[in-house]
């Protein structure tokens, strides 16, 4: 049988997924930590302060990667949601709903770091600029998916509803983003510059390192949450009983 097909077929099996994701997770954490330590070292110690913004630019190494993740995760949720709904693959449903809290966490992180970056740089904690506003709407979209999932009694139905909502939200997300960006140019108060004309290479590397690191965080956290959800949903099944006896030793 085609090995790729076989692989995907196996990942659909909860005990197989549980076992092999468990092996993968420590590596993902290790890579995350390694990239983060190196990236933060480069960003906080080696890289210079910004010409215009001063030291506060160091917040960028948190703010930009988390903002990127907030959008990437929502996009992934939508894609996985389509697979889950069309092909009824349970593991995809689990991955969709396990991604939501991680995405929400990154969104909150982007908002808070953005706010703290704004205060020393542009004088205010909050401003209705295009990016912050879209991020806030994105946070509400995440909350909506999470709350919708928790409102249902039956887990698989809940996951399918959450998947549908992610897809609807994802379709609207570009529209929301562009409309907010356009709205912002209309109501331009003080000029909220972005990172400036271009990014200095000594800042680019730590930024990319942190961006990559966050992806490994997502991977590790996602698998961790997915495993927990599978245990919870399958707690009556044999494979969970086996896990139970194995992990108590």
């Amino acid at each position, binding site marked *: 049988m085609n090995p790729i097909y076989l692989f995907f077929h196996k990942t659909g099996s909860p005990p197989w997924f549980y076992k092999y994701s468990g092996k993968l997770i420590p590596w993902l954490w290790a890579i995350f930590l390694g990239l983060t330590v190196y990236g933060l070292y480069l960003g906080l110690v080696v890289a210079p302060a910004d010409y215009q913004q001063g030291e506060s630019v160091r917040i960028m190494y948190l703010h930009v990667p988390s903002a990127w993740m907030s959008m990437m995760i929502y996009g992934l949720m939508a894609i996985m949601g389509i697979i889950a709904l069309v092909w009824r693959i349970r593991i995809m449903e689990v991955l969709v709903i396990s991604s939501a809290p991680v995405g929400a966490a990154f969104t909150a992180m982007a908002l808070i770091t953005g706010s703290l970056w704004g205060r020393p740089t542009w004088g205010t904690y909050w401003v209705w600029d295009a990016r912050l506003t879209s991020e806030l*709407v*994105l946070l*509400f979209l995440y909350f*909506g998916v999470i709350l*919708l999932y928790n*409102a249902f009694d039956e887990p698989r139905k809940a996951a399918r509803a959450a998947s549908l909502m992610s897809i*609807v*939200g994802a379709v*609207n997300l570009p529209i929301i983003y562009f*409309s907010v960006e356009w709205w912002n140019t209309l109501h331009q108060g003080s000029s909220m510059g972005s990172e400036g004309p271009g990014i200095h290479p000594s800042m680019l590397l730590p930024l990319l390192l942190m961006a990559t690191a966050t992806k490994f965080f997502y991977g590790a956290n996602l698998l961790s949450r997915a495993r927990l959800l599978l245990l919870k949903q399958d707690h009556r099944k044999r494979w969970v009983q086996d896990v139970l006896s194995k992990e108590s030793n």
Partner: protein
Amino acid sequence: MSRQATGTAFVALLRRDFLLAYRRRAELLQPLVFLLVVVTLFPLGVGPSPNLLASIAPGVIWIAALLATVLSLDSLFRSDFEDGTLEQMVLSGQSLALIALARTVAHWLVAGLPIVLLSPLLAMWMNLPDEGLAILVESLIIGTPVLSLIGAIGGALTVSLKRGGQLLSLLVFPLYVPLLILATSAVSSAVVDLPYTGQLGLMTAGLIASLTLAPFATAAALKLSLN
């Protein structure tokens, strides 16, 4: 299903929805009264300064329209869900998207259109200049159907939940953001003699897009909620 059967089904559904709406007219007035009350609260809250009210008028009226629509959406599918009619509709073999569309059209005629008709009154209360009124009405004519279409998706997703109403609003408000931005911008631009046709054009594009896509999402959500 033959083309004729589908058309007949659509009309039959609309007729049924109107009959049901007529029987519950008091209930349907609630969101509209809410609309009036909410708009009234703004002068009470921010002061009656005519310039201030005029400057926030497009936003206030549109937000009140959003709130009133969301209130009327919760019961969109609920009674049919509870007495089993919805299940029968799904089993009937008719295109579920068409059924969803029929329900949405009925909702707009009963809940959205009255908002359009009340808007001149709201515009007067909020001191919206005359140049803005025509565009306000236009924006509502284009926009309220979109509110119904997208809102139906939320209504279908939450119909099987006991306290679906609050969640419905939370799900649907972020999706309404682009509409709100475009509509209020159109009206504000019209007031100061700036171009507004672009905004209305985009809103119309949004209407066409929702008209073609939303019923399918609503149908999927209904199927989901029923299982």
